[in-house]
Structures are given as structure tokens and as C-alpha cells.
């Protein structure tokens, strides 16, 4: 036991990145000021290595929440690049800034009270600027999730809301696209609206779910669940061990257990 305690501690470094042996120190510029950091760190870890403690600009640290939207250039290179700080590895001469926030247009709406037959009109009413897209493609080039943003805007313009919803699905709502759009479109908030329209009005409803909801509301499972809560541990264990398992390959909705008493 003593052996693993010593073994675990050095391996368990919390969130600290250990650079490999022989890693060089490279210069990066955090908002213009030079810092020497070991190569192989992500921008986020490099910024913390330099001594910054994040308040804004840091969220899930795993590439899904969009908090760490980052712009950068390399010294000597005119190209403006964008990415997520937690997913982008630093390179020598990187000049970095993060977007702590970006104002996006987001009008309120009542999803329940939208005319199902006039969804495109509703989009036009709430986000008329979508229709002013000039097709420059900057948004697509900027997106850190490899989404073809210009394309989903084009689908929105054409009225293919389902297509736009599917195409924008991987969006982490970082706002980088919106910050760069010359037509002042807030792509990611328009896409959020369109995805909800799609989920509610354009995708077919799950009928088996609606049926189960009625059953739950009628109290169908109340007694059998109450009985379970009052059972001895021995009896529950027995039920647990003996319960049937749906085969992995069964088509959803086709398999039924032998014990139908509790369905």
C-alpha cells in the first residue's frame, strides 16, 4: 500500500502539464507581452504557465463550451487565425488574445407560439440580417469546430431550416464567427433558434414517448415503484440479479421481456 501511495503522487499532477524531456522554451506574446513557455503546452496551459489566473476565457477546458475563443497571429505572418485556447498548441512567435465576451444579436421569442407553417418567415422577422450575407466565407474559415458556417447561413436563406440545423449542430457557441462577420450576422444565435425550431417542429415526434408520458401521469408506475422502495435489500437484490436484459442487437421497440407485469 505504501508503495502505491508514492507511485500515485508523482503521476497525479492535478492539471499540470509535464513537458517532455528536452522540450525547448519558446517565446509567445500574450496580448503583446513576451513570455517564455515550454513547447507542447496548449494556449490555455501556456497562459497559466505565464502566471495568469483565468476568470473569463476558461470553461470546460475540453473543447465543448466555447468559453476560450482565441485569435492569434505568428510574428512575421499576416494571416489571422482563430481557435479554442484549450485545444490549440502554442508555437514560437504566437501572438495571442482571447475574446472574454462578444455581443451577439439574440431576440427573445416564444417557441410555443410560433406558426408552424411560417417558420421561415419567423426567421426572417427575428434575424433579417441573415439575408444580407455577402458570401465572403470568413465565418467558415474562422470556426474552430470545422463547421461550414456560410453554408448553413445559405441553407437558412433558402428555407432549408432542417439542413441548417444539422449543419450547425457541432457549434460550441464561441462567437468567433459573429465577431468577424462583415454583414453583422450573429450566426451562432440564429443557428440556436433554427435548431430549436427543427427539434420542435421539423423532426417527427416520438409517439412511444408521448404514450409513456400519459402512463406516467396516470400514476401507472406509482404503486410498483413504491413497493420497490419498501422492499428489503435481499428481495431487491434478487429481482436485480434475475432481471432480463434486452439483446444488444434488438431493433428499438420490437423486443418485449417475458415479465410483462411491470411494463
Amino acid at each position, binding site marked *: 500500500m505504501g508503495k502505491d501511495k508514492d507511485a500515485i503522487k508523482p503521476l497525479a499532477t492535478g492539471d499540470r502539464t509535464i513537458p*517532455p*524531456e528536452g522540450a525547448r522554451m519558446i517565446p509567445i506574446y500574450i496580448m503583446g507581452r513576451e513570455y517564455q513557455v515550454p513547447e507542447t503546452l496548449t494556449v490555455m496551459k501556456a497562459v*497559466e504557465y505565464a502566471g495568469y489566473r483565468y476568470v473569463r476565457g476558461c470553461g470546460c477546458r475540453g473543447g465543448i463550451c466555447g468559453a476560450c475563443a482565441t485569435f492569434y497571429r505568428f510574428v512575421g505572418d499576416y494571416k489571422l487565425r482563430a481557435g479554442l485556447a484549450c485545444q490549440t498548441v502554442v508555437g514560437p512567435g504566437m501572438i495571442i488574445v482571447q475574446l472574454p465576451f462578444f455581443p451577439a444579436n439574440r431576440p427573445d421569442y416564444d417557441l410555443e407560439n410560433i406558426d408552424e407553417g411560417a417558420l421561415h418567415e419567423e426567421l426572417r422577422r427575428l434575424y433579417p440580417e441573415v439575408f444580407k450575407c455577402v458570401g465572403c466565407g470568413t465565418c467558415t474559415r474562422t470556426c474552430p469546430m470545422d463547421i461550414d458556417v456560410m453554408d448553413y447561413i445559405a441553407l437558412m436563406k433558402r428555407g432549408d431550416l432542417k439542413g441548417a440545423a444539422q449543419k450547425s449542430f457541432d457549434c460550441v457557441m464561441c462567437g468567433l464567427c459573429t465577431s468577424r462577420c462583415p454583414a453583422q450576422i450573429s450566426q451562432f444565435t440564429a443557428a440556436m433558434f433554427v435548431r430549436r425550431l427543427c*427539434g420542435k417542429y421539423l*423532426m417527427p*415526434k416520438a409517439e412511444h*414517448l408521448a404514450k409513456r408520458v400519459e402512463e406516467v401521469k396516470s400514476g401507472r408506475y406509482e404503486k410498483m*415503484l413504491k413497493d420497490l422502495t419498501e422492499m428489503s435489500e435481499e428481495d431487491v437484490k434478487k429481482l436485480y440479479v434475475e432481471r432480463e436484459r434486452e439483446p*444488444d442487437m434488438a431493433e428499438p421497440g420490437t423486443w418485449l421481456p417475458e415479465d410483462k407485469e411491470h*411494463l
Partner: protein
Amino acid sequence: MSGYTREFKELIKRVEATRPARVEKARRGEHFPALTMSQRKEWLSAYHPDYKSEGRRAVAVGPSKGQVLPEEVAVLLESRSLLDPDRVSLDEADYETDVLVIGGGGAGTAAALAAEEAGAKVLLSTKLRHGDSNTVMAEGGIQCADQEGDSPYFHYLDVIGGGHFTNKPDLVAALANDAPLIIHWLEGLGMMFDKLPGGRMKVRHGGGTSRKRMHSAGDMTGAEIMRVIRDESRNRTEKIKVLEFSPAVELLTDGSGGVAGAVLYNIETKEYYVVRAKAVVIATGGFGRLHIQGFPTTNHYGATADGIVMAYRAGVELQDLDSTQYHPTGAVYPEQNVGLLITEKVRGLGAQLLNIDGEEFCFPLEPRDVESSCILRECLEVGKGIPTPTGRVGVWLDSPMIDILHGEGTVRKELPAKYIQFKRYDIDISKEPMLVFPTLHYQNGGLSINERCETTLKGLYAAGEVSGGVHGRNRLMGNSLLDVLVFGRRAGSGAAEYAKSLKQSPAPTLEHVRAFHRELEGAGIEDPVTGPVLLPDYAPEHVKKRQWD
């Protein structure tokens, strides 16, 4: 980045050498034998961090005095307030509300929506942005018994069996019963579930399930849930006000066993705000960023157990807080991905765990706590882990088996986010195995609640990862997203109803803090830290040396 080093590529050859035989066995349905019940118990006691005496001690004060908890948690439960009660004026409230929700993740947002629907005026305060949470990172799916061959009865059995029968039965019944209502609610809010062409929900098995009931939205189920319910709360700005970057730092009590609101701290302007509320919902999530035993974590930046610290000081009892879930497969290479969650789905699709010789050493689908123990044993006692260039150790997770078993392209289709997260570093997980090691993942226990989410403090409700009892001492995949929404809504409705029963919010006091500080002194706690910590401290030594203040 150039993928695996030459040394790794040599070791991977051993994996490739054993693979054909292993695949044949898998096709025949043969598995490495699972541990017997008594072997499970033995290995858990020997290798699982929860069972070690090092790094754990009895907490010296408060309602759960004497309970043995991880050191990092015990230290915070014995902390002093950030506030000095004698220098804080509670005479004027900066905000008055019916329901105060502390925490802006899945549970907090669900609570705010439910409270608003019940007619309450809601203030939601959150430490970072609205939506910054563990909810947003959950990927595996959300469980619900909505198929014809399933029912809440079987869901109940799966939950309580997975929790080793230590769960609170009423909470399990609530979780299983309410699940269909929640999924239906999400569908009505416009969530894009994975569905078959006619509208039927696509469902899968998870660890410990007897029915296929894992619902999903691509491989970002939690992110989709969070952005949908957050967007809905933004449509209700008249009744739901959100204060970002304003964590609560202390609860306010009414001097007679009830809650009266909280003190918030604006991290940016460094102002404190007094919030008077008739009811409070705590939904502050987990404790991964405390890095128990130094483990890396899958949790978001703000997971520092703030709600537990504040509620404990106010006398709220704990349930199973000593039980921590380590996800068996956190990435351990490349260094940039250390701690990243590699979903259980990978093993569900057939990938096996292998040691440095390319040999199996355990059944790949043991319950998470048992699986983690197996990996820790193989690396630290048997000594057959694979070392990394940065001094870490891991075992192989043989993901290339997935395409061989299910057809080329399966990995890219079923695990698109994981595929990208490794491709970035020139590792193609459909052709090369991943290197994994247990990572700190979930707070199984927390504040004690009943099925109405009431805590032992009147008017204080708790929901989500911050609470205990729902999952017992081991949570199943897909039940955490369900937990935050079922109990988030229950807490919100309960808080709204309670608020209606009061004419006005009680006069606030910090007397409970004074009493707690006296208890700390009485227990002889030398040099207590202040808590909650709010944000982890990742400043390296060379920086700290130069920070003279």
C-alpha cells in the same frame, strides 16, 4: 505534433500481435473473466482510492463530524468564511427575489425554469458564464424508460443495483418515474434527439443497464441539453434574471433553522451583494477541480465544491460524500489531453484494455469503481503499465478493434469528437490504440435531500451533482444528465411553492457563520483555510515565487 513516439510504436506492435486472437475470441462472445463478488471487494479495498487510508481523514466539525473524507474535501469543510460577520452589513438587500438559484448548469437552469413556471420571480447567480458546468461536457447520453419493453420499474432496478443498493429508494423512484416527463419536456423545447426516421428515439445500452434506454444527441448530449434549456431561460428574462461571474460565497439564514438568501461576490468588480430570498436552490455541481489525491479530472474549471462548503456551514447534512467516482478511462497521452474523458461507449463497442505486453488483464465492462481498481492494480502493483515520456503511466484501450468488429468507419461515426481530439495530435484512434488511466470524474454523494429536494435547512433545496443519495455509491452512465433535470425541476417547483407560503423573505443573519467559526476554534483547527475556493490555483512555482503579496 507527430503522433506516437518511436518507443510507443514499438510497444503498439505487441498489441497488434495479440489482436487477431483477441478479436476471434470476442467474435465468439468470450470475454476475459469478470471478477467474482468477493474478488471485487478485495480489489476495491486494495486499489480504489476511496478505500485507502492515506489522503483521507475524519472531518472535525459540523453535522457530519467524524466522517472520513478525502483530505481536500475535509480541509474545505473546516474552512472559515470569506466574510467577517462582524464587518458585513445585511441591513440593505441589493436584490430581493422569491427564489435564488445558485449555479448555472443543468440543474440550476432546470430549477429556474420550473420555478418560473410556478409563478416565482427567480434570480440565478453563477460563478462563470451561464452554462459553464459539468452538464455541458456530458456526452454518454440520458437514460429514460420510454420503450415498450421497458418501464420505470426496470430503470429503478438498474439504478439501485448499480449503486450497490446504497441509494435512497425514494430518490431512485423519483428519478425513474420522472424520466419520461423530462425527455418529453426536452423534446418540446426543441432538443434535437437522435431519432429514427419515423420519430422513434434511438436508444443504446450503457454500463449496468437491462434495457436500451440511453437517449442521445450526437456525441454532445449534455452540450445540446445545456444550450437548449439555457436558450429557453433567456426567453423568460422578465421573470428569470441571471447574474454571471457572481458566485455565492455564503448562505444567509433566518436564525431559526431556515434559509434567507445568500451573499454573492462579483469576481470582476470585487463587490459583495446581499440577496434576500424566500427560498434557495443550491446547484453548484461537483468537486473535480480539487484534484483529490492529485488526480487529473474531467470536470469543468469551476467544480470546486462551493455549495457543499456553504451548506455544511449552515448545518446541512451530507450523504455519501466520501464516495468518489473515478472514470477508468481518462486519456493519459498526449500530454495535452491528460484527464480527457474517453467515454465508456468505446468499451461498449468492444475495445479491450491491455497491458504493456499487449495482454488483457481485466473484463472491460466492470462497474466503474471496479474497472478503475483493475487498472490501478495493473499499473502500480503488477507493474505492467506503459510509461509515457512525461513520467505518467497508462494501459492501452484497443480502439482499432471497433472497426474490425463492426466495420470500417464505425469509430469515426460513433466517436466523432474523440476522433478529432486525437487526430489533432496525429493519432488515428481507428488504427492506433489510446493510452488511458483513471481520472477523477464524479461526486457520487453530497448534500442530503429527500425526493422533494429539501435539505435539512428549511427553504433550502439542492439538486444535481451537489446532492447525494440518488446514485448511492456508484453512478451509472446516463443517469447524471437525468438527475440534474429531474431534481432540478423538483427543486425549482418546490422552492417556488415554499416561497408562495411566505409573505416576505426572512430577515437575514450570518449567525450560523459565527457559530461555525466558534466550533472551528473549539475543535482546535490550526490555520484554517478560507472557503469556498471559487477557482483552482494553477500558478506554477516559478510564478508564485515572484508574487510577493
